[in-house]
């Protein structure tokens, strides 16, 4: 049988201050909860804005692709080069060796979006190097 706890009294010399402290602590706790709600709202707003940003960037990517396909499919390395000298005269333009840009048929291994972007970056860098 548990022993009955004996009563213990503590004298509080400034009860109003203690009461005020307790009430203010309760007030602060409610403020903290309120702030949690506010922070939650900000996070939601941020998430929505990030989704919007992602879709805008994805649309830009599509438009860039459209822009790329609007341009004649020319492989830069196949273009004839002309020597520019001080005495160059205007000559008829040589017909360009236009080749259909080979659409990469490599079936990319199913990977994450990051892998796909890495591959795309690699391709662009290769093209830049060949310029």
């Amino acid at each position: 049988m548990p022993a009955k706890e004996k009563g213990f009294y503590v004298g509080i010399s400034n009860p109003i201050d203690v009461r005020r402290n307790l009430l203010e602590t309760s007030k602060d706790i409610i403020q903290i909860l309120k702030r949690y709600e506010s922070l939650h709202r900000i996070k939601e707003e941020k998430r929505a804005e990030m989704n919007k940003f992602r879709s805008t960037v994805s649309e830009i990517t599509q438009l860039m692709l459209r822009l790329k396909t609007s341009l004649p499919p020319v492989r830069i390395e196949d273009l004839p080069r002309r020597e520019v000298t001080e005495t160059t005269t205007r000559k008829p333009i040589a017909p360009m060796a236009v080749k259909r840009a080979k659409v990469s048929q490599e079936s990319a291994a199913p990977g994450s979006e990051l892998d796909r972007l890495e591959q795309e970056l690699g391709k662009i860098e290769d093209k830049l190097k060949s310029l």
Partner: protein
Amino acid sequence: MSKNMPVFIKVERYEDISKTITKIRQMLKDAKDSLDKISNLRGQEEREIEEWNAELEAVEERLTTIEETLLHPEQI
């Protein structure tokens, strides 16, 4: 010195390209606006967390006072 030969494109495609570029420019502006908003929200978030921290510290301080009053009255 060598220079690439010029490339000519059909006028109808030129118009397409012009429209696409205008659209890309608009989308870039939208993306910039979105980024500005995200940056603002992040600032708000940081300020909220700072204030949260300050409030928690205030609660901690008040609790210490209450604890001292109730549990160690001889120290007061």
